[in-house]
């Protein structure tokens, strides 16, 4: 059985201009111990999916269709109290902009212990401290910095502290939302590698959200490419990256330099994503698509199977 199943998920935001469909009919599935990368431009709905998985949509956002099943439990149907129990113990999160994710007026140690204390009332203080120290060792942070305030940490240290925090309760699933964006390249690389090691070591499922397809391709088993609230291409990482089918994916691959991949010319993607308020009859990418045809604008595209695990949402690929 899959660790996580997202079925036909749609999420909307109420705005002054009307309902904004941030996520529209997305299907995902993740096995235990596997990692899935979600890539796309900002505003494509990837972070919204991450938040929905934690049950943390903002007050004006709501799931309008489909469901999320984690380890056999339908998360999308839980009430707030039940959700609270699931959070962190089942699904943890490594935040976008780790710099601001630590509370500046609370010591790191306290921020670490509070999660454990909340979910494990049975553990005594000593056991909790031991656990925290263990986690610090695990992510390679010096123990004497445990009781520092966040501003005394460097960016990389903060990121590690957050990773340690995410591991605190042995969650089955970790959502990593742009975990390394604000870090410099060397630290970024280090942390990504270590994350991968940890993931394999503890057999955790990871959903890796990023706008950088090259990084995702390096770290994850599978990739899902999102565009304007829809999944447009999904498949094994290497395949999606090197054998991209969807014109958007190709454009994404072309717009980032890679350290590992072959040298190629960077090509920016012209145009902007469509406004998600109101109905869009045809393909959402057609305005920016080189293969645009008349039918694209009128008919919604259908999923095409490239191979058993590689699918693409395009009628012309």
């Amino acid at each position, binding site marked *: 059985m899959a660790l996580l199943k997202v079925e036909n998920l749609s999420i909307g*935001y109420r*705005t*002054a*201009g009307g309902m*904004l469909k*941030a996520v529209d009919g997305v299907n995902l599935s993740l096995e235990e111990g596997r990692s899935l990368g979600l890539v796309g431009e*900002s*505003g*494509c*709905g990837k*972070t*919204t999916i991450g938040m929905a998985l934690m049950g943390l949509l*903002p*007050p*004006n*956002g709501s799931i309008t269709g489909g469901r999320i099943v984690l380890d056999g439990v339908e998360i999308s149907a839980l009430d707030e109290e039940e959700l609270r129990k699931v959070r962190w113990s089942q699904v943890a999160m490594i935040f976008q902009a780790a710099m601001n994710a630590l509370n500046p007026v609370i010591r790191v140690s306290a921020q670490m212990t509070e999660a454990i204390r909340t979910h494990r009332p049975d553990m005594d203080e000593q056991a909790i401290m031991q656990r925290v120290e263990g986690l610090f060792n695990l992510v390679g942070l010096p123990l004497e910095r445990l009781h520092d305030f966040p501003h005394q940490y460097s960016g990389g240290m903060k990121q590690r502290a957050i990773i340690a925090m995410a591991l605190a309760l042995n969650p089955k699933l970790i959502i990593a939302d742009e975990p390394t964006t604000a870090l410099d390249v060397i630290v970024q690389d280090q942390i990504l590698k270590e994350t991968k090691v940890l993931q394999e070591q503890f057999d955790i499922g990871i959903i890796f959200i990023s706008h950088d397809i090259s990084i995702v391709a390096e770290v994850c088993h599978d990739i899902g490419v999102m565009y304007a609230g829809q999944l447009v291409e999904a498949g094994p990482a290497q395949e999606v990256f090197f054998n991209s089918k969807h014109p958007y994916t190709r454009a994404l691959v072309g717009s980032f330099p890679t350290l590992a991949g072959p040298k190629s010319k960077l090509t920016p993607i012209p145009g902007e994503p469509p406004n998600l308020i109101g109905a869009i009859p045809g393909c959402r990418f057609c305005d920016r698509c080189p293969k645009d045809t008349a039918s694209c604008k009128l008919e919604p595209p259908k999923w095409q199977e490239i191979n058993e695990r590689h699918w693409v949402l395009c009628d012309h690929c």
Partner: protein
Amino acid sequence: MSVQQATLQSLKAGRRALWRQRLAENWRVFRGNLLGKIGLSLLVMFGLMAGLSYIPPLIDPMYHPMTGVDPLVVKSTGPSLTHWLGTDFMGRDILSQLLAGARVAFMVGVSAAFMSVVLGTAVGMTAGYLGKTTDTLLMRLADMIMVLPTLLVVLMLAALFGQLSIWMIVLMIALFRWPGVSRVIRAQTLSLKQRPFIDAARVAGASHTRIIFRHIMPNVLPLAFLYMTFRVTSAIVIEAGLAFLGFGDPGTVSWGMMLQWVWKTGHMFTAPYWLLPPGICISLITLSFYMLGRAMDEVLDPRLRDETQAG
């Protein structure tokens, strides 16, 4: 026309369009704001009152707010047909006084606020832009003035130098209420100074005055304007407090003055028709400016808007 000029002109046109667009956008947000709407409608009402204040003395000299007395009335009377809100102890019409009070409140509030904001903006921009010793000196001065309780200071000056005229009071309030504005403007200027377009202007050889007036000022003005609405509130309250304590300008019919008359002549608890209107008006006008300020705060600071975008 050289290419450069053309670019410059199109840039200017673009900037104008941007301003218009921003204004329209701001107005839309403002309209959606309940506080703003209430505040604005209250203000319109007070504005009407101020405008109407010129009418009663034209109908009959006895409706002159300061000197007109009803020959038939020699003590404070309740509302009647000839005096809708009644008369004060001398037989003067309370409604005419209330209307004249609205005019004075606007005059005092807006002019004191305007002066203090102009002063505060000038000092803030100078301090922020020039930095160094100028900055230190100006900000120390601001710190010092900021800690002085304005009402007591003006009270002291009023008592020392004899009764102050209404314009002196306005000036005093302005002189003692600028530091708050200047602090905020200074911070804003400091952050603007770091922006590339200022460097670009400097490299292009723009003078300091030009940089300050062309590049920095347009960017701090909205903030200064916001502060003005809050300053209006405090100016009105200070004037009223001063008048209430008997240090106002006795030749001016302000609401604070009306309250002082009610109070000093012993009608506080026997003439509600005289006591309540000015008190309520002072509270409502401060409330309306305050609400307007809060609403503008949200308009100008997009972070305070409701989340309409998400990613």
